[in-house]
């Protein structure tokens, strides 16, 4: 029964497309960071379905934990809205 996990991966991939589009379009940088974190979560699900647990373990702390924190720091130090 490999239909169920692959369907989960397909749904996660479509969700990541939506999240990427919103991250590129939004004028508010903080919203873009949040959408990019949503995209990262979807990718982590894809990695899990594609049988790469090592990558999931390194990708969750890096791309959902540290990178959004660094990006929020960057926005706080520069400017929040795109002119």
């Amino acid at each position, binding site marked *: *029964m*490999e*239909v169920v*996990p*692959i*369907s989960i*991966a*397909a749904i996660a*991939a*479509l969700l*990541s*497309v939506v999240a*990427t*589009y919103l*991250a*590129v379009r939004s004028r508010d*940088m903080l919203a*873009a*960071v949040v959408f*990019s974190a949503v*995209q*990262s979560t979807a*990718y982590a699900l*894809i*990695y899990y379905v*594609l*049988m*790469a*647990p*090592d*990558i999931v373990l*390194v*990708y969750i702390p*890096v*791309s959902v934990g*540290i*990178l959004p924190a*660094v*990006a929020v*720091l*960057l*926005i706080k*130090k*520069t*400017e929040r809205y*795109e*002119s």
Partner: protein
Amino acid sequence: MGRVSGMSDLVITLYTIVVLSLVVNIGISLYGVFTRPSLVKKFICLTIFSDTLNSFAIAIGFRRVSDTYPSIAVLSSVPEELSELATFAETAVDPVPQALVLTAIVIGLAVYMFLVGLIVMYYRHYKTTHVRVVEGGSVG
């Protein structure tokens, strides 16, 4: 037999959806890198782009095994016979792309942090993160 091949077609279709979504993500994030004027937005789009390329490498390492789901590239116990290793090699996914992507993600994070430092310095110097201000002297 017909039912089995129908299932197989469905799996291939779903897998193609995953890969094509990644291709679309590459396009959207590249559009963001090229056209958004803010350096911060370029930075966010660049991280999405690199994540997508890493996902392609993982997708290349995936495989299909007849009548079961492929296993991870980890032996669950110390093998007692040589035949266990042959079975393992027949069901496990490709470990090489995973090993390459693993280091790329952590190194990428350190390089992004350096990039963040450069953008902060840019902002301190020019009081904006808009690139065109520096290019042509005015917001265009």
